[in-house]
């Protein structure tokens, strides 16, 4: 009984406390860099698209709101189109988790409200930024052992030059 009265009293005292609500949009809250907001596609340190259109983000997406098509230039894969339907996106960040190249990243921007739902469909041009995002140094193609323009077989990180098949040495 006393406990109950004490609870009531303590709760009542909260009427005189500071209120934690931030009066958005008059006040802007601080969002940490890893806040899961609007999705972007980043570029690698050389300024090339990081996305290699592996489709892992699309398959990880629980609401199936990512779609893309692979294209290729001299061994380098990139998305021919990359489309996110933000009217379906739930900002779970699974796509970022799934991305093997740090291409897809979620940003602290969440102010995406629109009056027309169709405008929430973002194409690659809308998603691609000019920077590297949260991972300034990573480049998938420097690590993976595939040949692209400007990098031949055996020139990736941790690779020996190609084997000479015709040598008689052991």
């Amino acid at each position, binding site marked *: 009984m006393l406990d109950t009265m004490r609870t009531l009293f303590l709760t009542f005292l909260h009427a005189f406390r500071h209120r934690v609500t931030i009066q958005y949009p008059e006040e802007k809250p601080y969002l940490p860099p890893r806040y899961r907001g609007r999705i972007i596609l980043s570029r690698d340190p050389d300024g090339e698209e990081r996305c290699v259109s592996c489709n892992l983000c699309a398959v990880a997406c629980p609401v199936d709101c990512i779609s893309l098509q*692979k294209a290729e230039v001299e061994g380098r894969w990139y998305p021919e189109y990359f489309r996110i339907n933000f009217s379906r996106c739930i900002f779970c960040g699974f796509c970022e988790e799934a991305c093997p190249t740090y291409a897809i990243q979620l940003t602290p921007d969440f102010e995406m409200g629109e009056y027309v739902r169709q405008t929430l469909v973002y194409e690659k041009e809308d998603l691609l930024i000019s920077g590297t995002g949260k991972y300034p140094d990573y480049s998938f193609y420097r690590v993976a052992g595939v040949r692209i323009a400007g990098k031949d077989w055996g020139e990736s990180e941790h690779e020996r030059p190609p084997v000479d098949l015709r040598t008689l040495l052991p």
Partner: protein
Amino acid sequence: MTSIHIDGRTCPTRPDINLLQACLEAGASLPYFCWHPELGSVGACRQCAVRQFSGADDKTGRIVMACMTPVTDGTIVSIDDAEAREFREGVIEWMMVNHPHDCPVCEEGSECHLQDMTVMTGHNTRRYRFTKRTHRSQDLGPFVKHEMNRCIACYRCVRFYRDYAGGDDLAAFASHDNVYFGRAADGTLENAFSGNLVEICPTGVFTDKPFSGAYSRKWDMRGAPSVCVHCAVGCNTIVNARQETVRRVLNRYNGEVNRYVLCDRGRFGHGFVNAASRIRTPLRRINGQLVPVSTQDAMAQFSRMAARGPVVGIASSRASLESCFSLRVLVGADRFSTGQSRQEQDCAELGLSLLRTHPGLIPALHDMESADAVLVLGEDVSATAPRLGLSLRQSVRQASFRAADAAKVPRWMDAAVRTLGSECSSALFIATPAPTDLDSIAQETFHAAPDDIARLGFAIAHRIDPAAPAVSDLVESQAALADRIAMALVAAKKPLVVSGMQYGSPALMRAAAGIAAALATKTPVAALSLVFPDCNSMGLAMVGGLSLDAVLEKAEAGEIATLVILENDLSRHLDPAVLAKLTEAVPGIVIIDHTMTPLCETACLVLPAAPFTECSGTIVSQEGRAQRYFPVVFPSAPIQSGWRWVQALGQHIIVEDEAASAEIRATGLTDWRRMDDVTLALARDIPVLAAAVGAAPGADYRLEEQRPRNEPHRASGRTVIRSHISVRDQPPPASPDTPFSNSMEGAYGPDMPAALVPYFRTPAWNSVQSLSRFQQEIGGAMRGGDPGVRLFADLSSDQQDNRQPLYSYSLDIPAAFRPQSDKVLLLPEGRLFGSEELSLHSPPVAARSAAPALGLPAGDVPPGRVTLHLNGGVHDLPVQEIAGLPEGIALCPPHMVSRAFVFPCQASLSTADGKGKRT
């Protein structure tokens, strides 16, 4: 009953298989790489280690390679054993040491056996910190992409390519850590089955190059069980599509027919469905030009045309049974043509009647693989029916299997059996005008004119069964050859005779049937196989109809006002002059087709039909197997399947004509609502095709009370894939012609009917290796029964007793061929790429089709180019010397030089300087 104990679980199994296969059949998950049900075991990858115990008292046991250990009754093994697990994980770790870690940009990703096995063994952290060994990859031509760094050295590729498919331009090079699988130098893989490397390779070394250009992950693609339309063999395929475009064709296992292998024409020839040559709207000729019009306008035009007089229909050997039948219903049987020239039609009808009256077996492809003596009589099967040729190649191994059995070596012990087999003699005899790919494994070959080959055939029949007519004045060498072949065939347990209509010679087929019938007096399993030209030639022969020559007669008599031509390019069947006569005699030509053909130039109306990837249909293969294909893409409004167009035509005849209206209504044509209705009507109307209804489950079929799904359960992008058009979600496409849900929702499982399997996947097995879970026993029939129904099977059971009298030996023996001085006998040189109509619209196949050349006997070749004078025109061609080609014969790829190839074809040649040739 044999049984083995796996981790304390007793599993029934069968003898004569290895432990790995037994474990997989028991449902256990045991990683492996180098073993393949069709290639046997070589123990190269060391991945399938298990612990085997010698008895109940043995507590230690020993690690063995399951794929190299035979099953014996009561074998006790442990897959779960800690040391065996560690061993397998270690093996994977070694394999991954040099792996390039490029899965995101690897076409194999999502259906990679190496990925599956890595997950299965539990290897997930890379410990190796040193540098990786690398290789240079090669350009292997338009079909296959090579990325050697992904290799795990399982040797499957060379074992398939060299040992199984008989190729010689892919090999293993270098040694130890450096071993390399590729060609001696960059260049196109020559073998007709190179595309199978894509599925054989457990990782991404060999990937599908055309598919890479329109790449999509396996989990994203809708699959449709389909049937290859590029030859008469009827291989089962899976067509994959995403975003309403066809992406690739994969092999679909049918234990009786194609099993694990598909030829390159079938795998890469599908490009015509996406090609620019597709017809996508109705076209109407206005002021001499074909102009896109609305369907309404086109139908109104047809109503006017139909009002002018009788309508005659021309079907096609590449259209489905349903489309052909609907046309026959529309125009009536007496105005229905099969769309073949009289000569082609005679051949097809003769082939059908020979097969029907044949007293022995009509083998499926898999049966041919176990034939122990084979005679190929006048057909280059490796060009006209490539998959059949591959089956014949396997049949040669029967002798080595016998030797292995005698040596008590299990048949799956591949390296040992092949070593033994190198000593064994082949029992394959080939008699063709020109050399074929199979010559290298034949015991004897015989190159002569078709008539001479037929004479040899009749002589063999006479040697086997004296009741058969004798051939007079046979050359002594040929008589001796006939003796040897006859002896080999009679000695065989399962003899097989293969012929066909490539050379348009009824005598050849009669001779082949004669040999098979003669053999049938010795053994009931004597088999006869006849190769038909097109995917539904057999079905069309069963439907029957007028020949094109009969249509021409009608046309010239003014009895045709409108000609409805269904999926048929008549210019491939008629000489240009004859075709011109026909088109001039007919005022109105309506063409229903999916691809622009030269014939469309003569049409008043062109209607866009759906190709095999966009509609359902049933076709009958050359072994009389009715099989159904299902749509994977659902085309928008004007494009619809052939029979729906025919139905629409019927509805518009009704509008105009009261009398015809009643007639058409009586046929029920206008009441069909879905394809099953057409198939049922067809079965009622044509008794011989009655069983075709059972080719696949109908549209009402439900699995576990749901529609079967044809997209993988994790297909992505459902809410976005078409949101650039409209952000509103759309329901999945619906079709009344298939039982599928056309979405990722629905039933799916290893026990589903094999005719409906849209893709192969089971939990933890994402690659095509999951197929083994869909089979009753690995390499055997599918769990849901092998797809398709044999139409001949019914005949044999009905007429088992009174069958013998049906066949009577033909007495029509041709005279020996005599080379003429002023003319050559021009014979078609079947080509894997180029001869077939539709596949040539596929860019990779077009890239592989070589420019036509004129083949002339060796030693008789003038330098430079030669001018060929055909009755259809004059052609300037390069010359190719062909060793073994008999005198007086020239070879020319059909449909590539002159569009039509009309038998018998006599031509004259002249050299560039104008002098007449042929001395």
